[in-house]
């Protein structure tokens, strides 16, 4: 970022907001009004504190909002090498949408899915090309008022991805969305809007990446809204690797109608702080939602995720499973919540979260809630917080495996239950690799001698 840009656009404050509006002067009036309404809302909402239950475990006091730019241009015209590498490292895709800092940087769509009537583009482009659709669905299921950082998102939104899959069309290869943040001291506000018509099916994979040489704070606040008509299916996979100076807020919600199938998986590795809200409403009979998550944090990273699965119709099924590992002084909280409304009889829903602590200073809390208003329901929860099992460790040692390697195997093995839920084998490998890499950076001795799970599993 040039000095001119920095001095021009700094501060998630009134000046910054005016600057952003000026930059976005070409936007339709309704969009501008939405930003202004969100900004007004943001100003009236108090900054969450430790006294607010859902924010009790995250420390927001050190965010310096006035030093974070509301918009960061791409740092260069060409795609950064790191982005190109990430594109090829990931699975072959039906479409690829890349955002570099606050701007759309690259898009590629398989002509085949175009022919089938699938729409994929950056959200900013969708505002221009599909204003009626965006206007109708944008901010509807996850409104600005959800929390202070959602309001901030709707005021400053730039970038994100828009996907619409028409009735009956299946997109099997993933549509990928990548946000690459290499600006230092920048805000990042991508919005994901996905519309799945009757019987449509989508595989979606998003990556949120931050270059790890920042000194100034970044702030990301992303929102995803997923509308699913009867019988629609989504496999949603998200990998978050923002840098250690990024305060990351995310707020995602899916509404699935009759017979909708949601398979969700979120993997959080990066960020200084992650505060996530993942909601799913099953509003029609036969709906099913599987919400999986994993996180691996160390140093002083914090993670606090709230999941809310609401059964609003009979014969719906849900499953929430989160697994996290905290090392060093990292701390986490997982608040899993399942609500079974009165109408939702003959529903079954399970909630489980398990955390492994690798150091004396790491901490984790689990706050499960089941609210059941219907009869004839099966609903259960389980939660554990533990350390590496001494017996498992001794078993591996007794076979000649050095201790750092043994510890690594057990920790990575702990995630496998969740990783198994990753839809595509190639994605599974990718996430596994990134988990390993994070472990290795932290503890170089732990590299397994010549062990590669990929060649084991491919036989």
């Amino acid at each position, binding site marked *: 970022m040039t000095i001119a840009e920095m001095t021009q656009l700094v501060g998630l404050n009134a000046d910054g907001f005016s600057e952003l509006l000026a930059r976005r002067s070409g936007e339709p009036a309704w969009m501008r009004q939405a930003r202004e309404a969100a900004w007004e809302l943001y100003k009236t909402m108090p900054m969450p504190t430790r006294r607010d239950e859902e924010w009790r475990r995250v420390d927001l006091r050190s965010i310096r909002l006035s030093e974070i730019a509301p918009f960061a241009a791409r740092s260069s015209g060409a795609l950064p090498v790191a982005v190109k590498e990430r594109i090829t490292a990931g699975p072959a895709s039906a479409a690829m949408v890349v955002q570099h800092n606050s701007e759309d940087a690259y898009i590629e769509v398989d002509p085949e899915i175009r022919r089938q009537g699938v729409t994929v583009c950056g959200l900013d482009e969708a505002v221009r090309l599909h204003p009626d659709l965006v206007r109708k669905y944008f901010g509807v299921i996850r409104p600005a008022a959800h929390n202070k950082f959602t309001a901030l998102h709707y005021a400053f939104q730039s970038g994100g991805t828009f996907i619409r899959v028409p009735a009956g069309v299946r997109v099997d290869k993933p549509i990928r969305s990548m946000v690459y943040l290499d600006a230092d001291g920048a805000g990042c506000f991508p919005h994901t809007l996905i519309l799945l018509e009757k019987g449509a099916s989508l595989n979606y994979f998003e990556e949120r990446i931050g270059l790890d040489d920042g000194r100034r704070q970044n702030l990301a606040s992303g929102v995803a809204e997923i509308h699913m008509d009867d019988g629609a299916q989504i496999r949603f996979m998200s990998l978050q690797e923002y840098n250690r100076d990024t305060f990351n807020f995310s707020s995602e919600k899916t509404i699935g109608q009759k017979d909708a199938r949601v398979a969700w998986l979120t993997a959080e590795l990066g960020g200084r702080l992650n505060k996530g809200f993942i909601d799913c409403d099953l509003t029609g009979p036969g709906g099913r939602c599987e919400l999986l998550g994993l996180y691996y944090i160390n140093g002083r990273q914090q993670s606090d995720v709230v999941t809310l699965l609401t059964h609003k119709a009979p014969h719906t099924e849900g499953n929430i499973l989160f697994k996290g590992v905290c090392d060093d002084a990292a701390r986490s909280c997982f608040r899993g919540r399942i609500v079974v409304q009165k109408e939702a009889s003959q529903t079954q829903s399970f909630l489980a979260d398990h955390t492994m602590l690798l150091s004396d200073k790491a901490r984790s809390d689990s706050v499960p809630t089941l609210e059941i208003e219907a009869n004839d329901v099966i609903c259960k929860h389980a939660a554990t917080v533990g350390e590496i099992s001494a017996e*498992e460790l001794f078993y591996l040692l*007794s*076979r000649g495996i050095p201790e750092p*390697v*043994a510890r690594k195997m057990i920790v990575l093995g702990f995630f*496998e239950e969740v990783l198994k839920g990753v839809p595509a084998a190639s994605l599974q490998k990718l996430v596994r690799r990134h988990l390993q890499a994070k472990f290795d950076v932290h503890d170089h001795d732990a*590299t397994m*001698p*010549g062990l590669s799970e990929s060649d084991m599993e491919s036989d």
Partner: protein
Amino acid sequence: MATLEIKDLHVSVEGKEIIRGLSLEVNKGEVHALMGPNGSGKSTLSFALAGHPKYTVTRGEARFKGGDLLALPPDERARAGLFLAFQYPAAVPGVTVGNFLRTAVNSHRANGSAPRALTGKEAEAGKNGGNQISAREFLKVLKENMRILNLQDDFAFRYLNDGFSGGEKKRVEILQMAVLKPELAILDETDSGLDIDAMKTVAEGVNRLVGPEMGALVITHYQRLLNYIKPQKVHVMMEGRIVTSGGPELVHELEAKGYDWIRQKFGIAATATAAAS
């Protein structure tokens, strides 16, 4: 110098002395049976030799191939060639039998030196320059041994001992022994929970390996297994000591007369060992 040489060993668990002056020598090529009632300290001895941190050696020594076994951490003991088939093997969810065992083999091959740090791509290509076993080569060895032990191929990809039946666990212990080729194996009640066919399979697995390259200390409290694995020497353990040793005929004597006969003969109170599991 014997391969394994234990002299006047004393072991405590949680402050309580369990092994009280045990001496024993086992060589490569030999099979020794260690018999004794429940609670006499057989598993404690195995854990102490394998280096479990909960088991503290308070006196005596154990030498392995001439070196001080007790000075080594557990992984180095294993790499030196000592193997323990556990009475109750731990389950390690998320770690497949194949990956676990290949890592173990490569750890042995890396010979204790810190494994070279490989970056993702290098590691994947197997470009570790050393003598590490390739996935292909390893799978061949693994499958061969699984076939001999009547284990389906898919065990390679199942999580270690996770949801395995008692018999499967025991066979997977022997599988590990077969792949790691130790110089001295301690088999802690490898026969318990096995039906007769499974026991024969396991015994064949052991017999295949015993020879000039490997000795075995077979722990059991039934004579059953010893019909299939023939020991040259039999030791009877009570209250943390070997009270008597003999040839294979001792197995039959024990079978016929029971441990009480030994107790009477050596003046050991019956109460001391009765309650333990």
